[in-house]
């Protein structure tokens, strides 16, 4: 009975959240409609309805799907490169004081340089086509992943190591059963933030020689003052970004570090 009651409450909570969210979004759409009617200028601010019809158009001719696919591919490529480098590097630095002392100042200096400022060097170094855009998205994803994984590595508790050793754990068990799981929650947090950053950087990355993708679509639509296409691009980015971050969050809670979210 208690369980039934609880799940009922939970269900009610979700329903309330959805209702409130829907009201909030409708209010927003209402204000938008009013503002666009008030301005009466489709270039300045097209109405939500005209944005929706642009959506329909771009979905019908298949170009939206293509652009989304291209952007998502760039994001995941850059994100994978960034995580493959950042996580092991962070863990190594977490365990070596000397390496840490050598490398961390450099990282502090490079970190504030925004992805967009890397474009010239990315082209000069990586050439054209997709490699520089992977570079841009991975630069954006690198720092949150690195910094969180590093924090995860340094947060290892001496007590856990002691406990494991006194229970007979050797170096291998210590690494796989204690050190890695202990850093995992922070690593996953870093991955989640990094994915968000990579996604935000894909628009920047598509300033380079790209002929597809949501960022390219936005740029091209600007030239022809197709503001409703610009808004389609922006809202798709918002929507997909929210979905990506949200689903990684669910994965995290359910499967990757369930122990951090008991029940």
């Amino acid at each position, binding site marked *: 009975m208690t369980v039934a009651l609880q799940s009922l409450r939970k269900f009610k909570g979700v329903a309330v959240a959805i209702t409130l969210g829907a009201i909030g979004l409708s209010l927003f759409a209402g204000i938008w409609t009013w503002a666009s009617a008030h301005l009466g200028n489709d270039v300045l601010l097209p109405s939500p309805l005209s944005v929706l019809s642009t959506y329909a158009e771009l979905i019908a001719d298949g170009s939206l799907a293509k652009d989304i696919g291209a952007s998502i591919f760039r994001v995941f490529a850059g994100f994978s490169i960034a995580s493959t480098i950042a996580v092991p590097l962070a863990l190594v630095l977490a365990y070596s004081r000397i390496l840490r002392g050598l490398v961390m100042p450099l990282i502090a200096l490079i970190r504030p340089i925004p992805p967009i400022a890397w474009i*010239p060097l990315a082209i000069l170094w990586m050439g054209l086509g997709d490699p520089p855009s992977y570079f841009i998205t991975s630069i954006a994803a690198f720092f949150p992943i690195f910094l969180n994984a590093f924090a995860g590595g340094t947060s290892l508790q001496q007590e856990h190591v002691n406990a494991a050793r006194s229970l007979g754990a050797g170096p291998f068990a210590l690494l796989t059963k204690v050190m890695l799981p202990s850093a995992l929650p922070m690593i996953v947090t870093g991955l989640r933030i990094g994915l968000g950053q990579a996604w935000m950087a894909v628009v920047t990355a598509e300033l380079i020689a790209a*002929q597809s993708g949501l960022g390219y679509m936005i740029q091209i639509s600007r030239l*022809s003052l197709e503001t409703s296409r610009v808004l389609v691009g922006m809202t798709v980015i918002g929507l997909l970004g929210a979905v990506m971050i949200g689903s990684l969050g669910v994965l995290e809670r359910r499967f990757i570090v369930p122990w951090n979210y008991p029940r």
Partner: protein
Amino acid sequence: EDAKIRIGYPSGMNGQVPVVLEKAGIAQKHQLTAEFTGFQYGPPMMEGLVSGQLDAVVTSFLPPLTLSAKAPGSVKFVATLGQSSHALLVPKDSSAKSLIDLKSKKIGVSVGSESHLDLILALKDAKLDAKTDVELVNLQPNELPAALEKGLVDAALIRQPQVLRLEESLGAKKIQSWPFRFTSIVRTEYLNSNPDAVKRYVEALKDAVLYIATNPDQAATWFAESQRLDAAVVKKLESENPLYAAKSRDDIKIEIDDGFKKLLAERLAAAIDNGLVKSKIDPASLTQ
């Protein structure tokens, strides 16, 4: 065996020749294995050329001159591909009829571009000082249409195909226009190691021009698709390029001749005089 050539082109009307070159499969006929890369902006394309990621690009005058100032002798002009246009546009309700009327007004222009040079020269002709008599606002090509539409500038120097689009959609008015000349350059290194390939490249360009001249509809469709434009707009603009009036291959002259060399020397001198190119370059080093 086919030679490999990597070709870059920008999003303006000068991109049409390379697009047709690709779509009509003309490169293969000239034993060239070509790779094509389109760009939204000039800078990434020139950066690609410098880093050896591109062998040839289709462009205008100023970017190669800027590059030559930094890296003398690194590129050579190998073809001239006719022209489109760029124009000084004012909003529909503007009273300005000529450049003189824009005295002490704001003019939007992409600083350091071909348009910038033409504007400076035109201002000189109109006896206006580019520094004191008008306010030049530096805007990226992407931002110019919005700035004009919003009335943030009193006039903007914009290229085709945006000129036509803005005339049609906003009723913007042209108060002066200039030819926007297309050229193609190749990396000197590439030229030295593949002189034959460059010759074939120029021949291929000629065939592409001929294709556009003889199949204007198909050419317009291809280019419109690649730039997400309206094919009718492209078709209309094809008429601006005298090369596309050709009836046969023999009518098409795209090789570097003395007339081109003279024009090049003039543009270079003007660019240096007006501070757009910072160091002296020997015009002869820019051609073969």
